[in-house]
């Protein structure tokens, strides 16, 4: 998986430790989006023809194509279903997330 990683952010201890101006480092992820998801896209690797269309159309860029198989970053997938809808061989199934897990 080659996707941006979370940073371990600690609240500034004093007002003086706040950034100078309304500023923050870029590439600074402190919270994931997994909790937004009702359905989880699951790639059927048997059916996948690696056309990379899902990688292209994902609004969140969570599909990684660097490995042998396409891989989904479930920390940031919102479960919008665009990938499954656009997949020509129907290799992505939207599976309901379990309530407890």
């Amino acid at each position, binding site marked *: 998986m080659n996707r941006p990683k979370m940073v371990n952010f600690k609240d500034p201890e004093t*007002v003086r430790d*706040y*950034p100078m*101006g*309304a*500023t923050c*480092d*870029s*590439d600074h992820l402190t919270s994931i989006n997994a909790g937004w998801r009702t359905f989880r896209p699951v790639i059927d690797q048997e059916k996948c023809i690696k056309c990379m269309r899902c990688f292209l159309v994902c609004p969140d860029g969570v599909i990684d194509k660097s490995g042998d198989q396409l891989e989904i970053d479930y920390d940031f997938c919102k479960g919008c279903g665009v990938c499954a809808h656009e997949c020509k061989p129907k290799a992505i199934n939207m599976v309901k997330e379990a309530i407890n897990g």
Partner: protein
Amino acid sequence: MARRFVSGNDAVAEGVRLARPHVISAYPITPQTIVVERLSEFVEDGSLQSIYMHVESEHSALAAAMGVSSVGARAFTATSSQGLLYMAENLPYASGARMPIVMMNANRALATPWNIYGDQMDSMFMLNSGWIQVYVEDAQEALDMMIQAYKIAEDPKVLTPFMVNLDGFVLTHTYEVVDIPTQEEVDAFLPPINLSENIMSMEAPKSLCITAGNNYNMEFKIKQNEEMIESISVIEQVDAAFEKQFGRGYNGLLETVDCEDADVILVTTGSITGTARMVQKTLRAEGKKVGLLKLRYLRPFPTKALTEALKNAKVVGVVDKNISFGYEGTIFTNVNSALMQEGASQKVDNFICGLGGRDVTKENIHEMYEKMLVHLETSADVNDANVASKPQDRIHYMNVRCAL
């Protein structure tokens, strides 16, 4: 050093040329126009190596300057009156981002009624914008403050945008003899801009002008306020260093004339101070214990220095070329607040004058001192036709052409 006979606006342009901003983005408005005309000429003739952006509005003038500052380059803009208010939303934007942009403002009346002449209604609107505000008395101070402004604004402890205010026409269009320092002298005083913490750069990519919700927002603002109050010491140090290098200084945030033993002290800003100096001198020669306080900075507000200078006075008069409608002059409000904070008990008078370019003559200033001297002896000058009825009975409208 060269000595030249120039207008206030020319002096500003000379000061800006010496400060060598990377980019100038400005939109013309009377009475600021000569500043931007001169700067465009300097760019054309090569005596200033800046990019001149012909923006389509004041709003974009400051927005473009913010873009320039956001990558760590030095930016300059200039405006006046309606133009300042048109760019208004960008003022707190730039200060919240701690961008050390310098802006010249030609103080001018606000419509309506339309009027192109000088008063301070425009910049008073912006007292809460988070910009440092200085009011200069003459062309020399205008030139010098363009150089000091960058030095103060770009100080790593300050990083705050800076507004230099000149009275429209009375100062912007009046010719005086001005000493113009050499580029070498200015370069020795004002080093190249060097920002790192709050800029976008390839070395450390940043996100700027971010959102901070109700969980974090307040601390950003407190930091901004505390650090702006602390900029007082930088302002004083820079002025002292300037005096050391160029042989003239401005006493930091305010200047006092004969205040130590004065019974009555008149507080002025900007070019009126020049007239007040003459009147004060005459009255002193007559044996009257009068003083003068030239308030240079309104933000940060020099509470301590001001109350210290006024502590022996019995009557304090504040000259305001503005009104906060429904109340009083804005500088008066600020001075009163400072006096209250220090537990002082002076009698106070507010002289509202010069609106829409109305003359403020020596006679008018003389009259202000006379009123204060009367006030020294009585509770209030209730017989004066130009004193508003209670509860604003401390407001004196000066040089009014008819009865109230």
